[in-house]
């Protein structure tokens, strides 16, 4: 029987043909296990699309000289500014200090401080101090966690403390076993205390710090 060598030969020739068609001239160790997502290893053609180097990369000494010269010039700009005569303002975003973070253990969401109307004792651990995991924006987070969090639409005058909350509204969430977040047109909103005279209003919700 001499049939099997011909099959092997055919397969080998097929591989060689496919490899040649794809431009695989040789397989070297460096071509194995190379990154495919971060970098691409194009089949290079000698000299193609290359013009050689036009310069050597700069050395540290030359760079320091350039930077020193530029620094001296930049220093003159300070004279065109005004003196700092007030305490430096905060340059950090107030996002975390004006928000309540609610976590489902995997992802968290952000709602305005004062927007949590009802926070059952057994769900207090859902309110976290710092971001943990990835953020999920409010509508997606609500949809994912309807078992333990819900939204309650509130009239704008009520949210602004310009009108007392209807008794029905209060009754509705007082027996709620889920976290209740106040929303206006579906978006979380701070609930303010009714203003007395000209006193500043404050958040009145269950998350008040």
């Amino acid at each position: 029987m001499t049939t099997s060598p011909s099959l092997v030969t055919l397969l080998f020739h097929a591989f060689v043909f496919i490899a040649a068609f794809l431009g695989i001239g040789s397989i070297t160790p460096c071509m194995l296990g190379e990154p495919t997502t971060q970098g691409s290893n194009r089949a290079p053609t000698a000299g193609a699309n290359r013009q050689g180097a036009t310069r050597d990369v700069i050395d540290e000494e030359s760079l320091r000289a350039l930077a020193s010269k530029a620094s001296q010039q930049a220093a003159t700009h300070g004279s065109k500014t005004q003196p700092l005569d007030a305490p430096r303002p905060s340059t950090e975003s107030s996002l975390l200090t004006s928000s309540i973070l609610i976590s489902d253990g995997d992802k968290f969401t952000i709602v305005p401080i004062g927007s949590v109307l009802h926070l059952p004792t057994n769900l207090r651990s859902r309110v976290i101090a710092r971001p943990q995991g990835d953020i999920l924006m409010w509508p997606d987070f609500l949809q994912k966690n309807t078992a333990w969090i819900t939204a309650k639409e509130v009239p704008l005058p009520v949210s602004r403390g310009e009108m007392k909350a209807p008794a029905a509204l209060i009754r509705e969430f007082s027996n709620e076993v889920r976290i209740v977040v106040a929303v206006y047109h579906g978006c979380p909103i701070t609930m303010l205390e009714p203003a007395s005279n000209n006193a500043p209003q404050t958040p009145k919700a269950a998350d008040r710090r």
Partner: protein
Amino acid sequence: MKPLQITLWFCLLSALPLRAAVTDAFVRQTDLKTGQVYDIPYTTPGGPYTSPLPVSEDGAKFELFARGTAWDTNIYLLDTKLIYAYGPTARLSITTEDPYVFGDSAGGTYVKRTRSDRPFTITTTVSGLVSSSDASAAEKSVYYEVRAMNYDPVTYSSLNMPTSLLHAYNLGNGELTWGPVYHELASPTLMSGCGQQTYTCVQYAADNVPDTILAQPTVQIWPVATANIDKITSGQVFIDRIPTITFAMAHLYPDSRTYAQIYPGPAVLGKVGTLITGTERRYGSYYNPNQGVTPTNVPQDVQIAIDNISAYASADGIYTLEVITETPFFNRTGERLLKITFEVDRVISSRGALSTGEKPAQ
């Protein structure tokens, strides 16, 4: 109180590429008098935004926040707009040689990038301030500061890295151009600078308006790439097969093409040699036009073993091995990271096998 319906223009088009279907951003509206906060999920990539909440005569602050893309789960303040009777405006423009921008450069908060050996320019433009002597600090000037943050030099990550204050000034009305300047990161060498410098303009708190960030762009600074080759040094003479060598290339710019080439003769700048198969690396959409998505936004480190250098140096003689990188800098022309000139002299090898390894006297 006469409520106003406000339409603002926030642009997320470049900030959130290919993530339009996911709610990754929200606008936070803060009433300046009461402090009432209203969060509106923002799903449309760019275009006008109409607040469903009326704005009182006391004004409101609108902030656009967005999650980073892909693995970046940080939340970024992309833009701030104050709807207020009085208010200065500030624009900070960063000019680098790399066209990359993350976010909306027309807005106040975006990220640009450059390389640690390249200069860049910052232009501050402030208007809307008053100069009368009885004006408050908030009316006469805005606060401007520059902060630096070093990234982790191994992972290139900014996670939990502290910042340091470089400069702080008050600015009046007008335009100032700062630069060209080089980075001021606290790095072992200027060339190894790896981090970011953030430029912030803040309106001082006054009349119920808290300290408000008017603009906060950032420039990322990536180290200059380096290249090393082991088991081969300049001037070395090979009398036998050249062993497997390893190219160690570090900090390859996220928008770059890097490769090794070899040619006969001593080193000549600008000479085009034979590209050594398997050494070419391309990063970024410019060098990968068919990929669709930019595959990386941080530098890359690679090690490449090549076992057939002798195939490129078959005849006896002098050869030069070079590593060249192309980046947005210098109009994408090549910069030579490394050059090694060596000699192949196999005749000595065969003679040495017969008698001694010494060259015959001239």
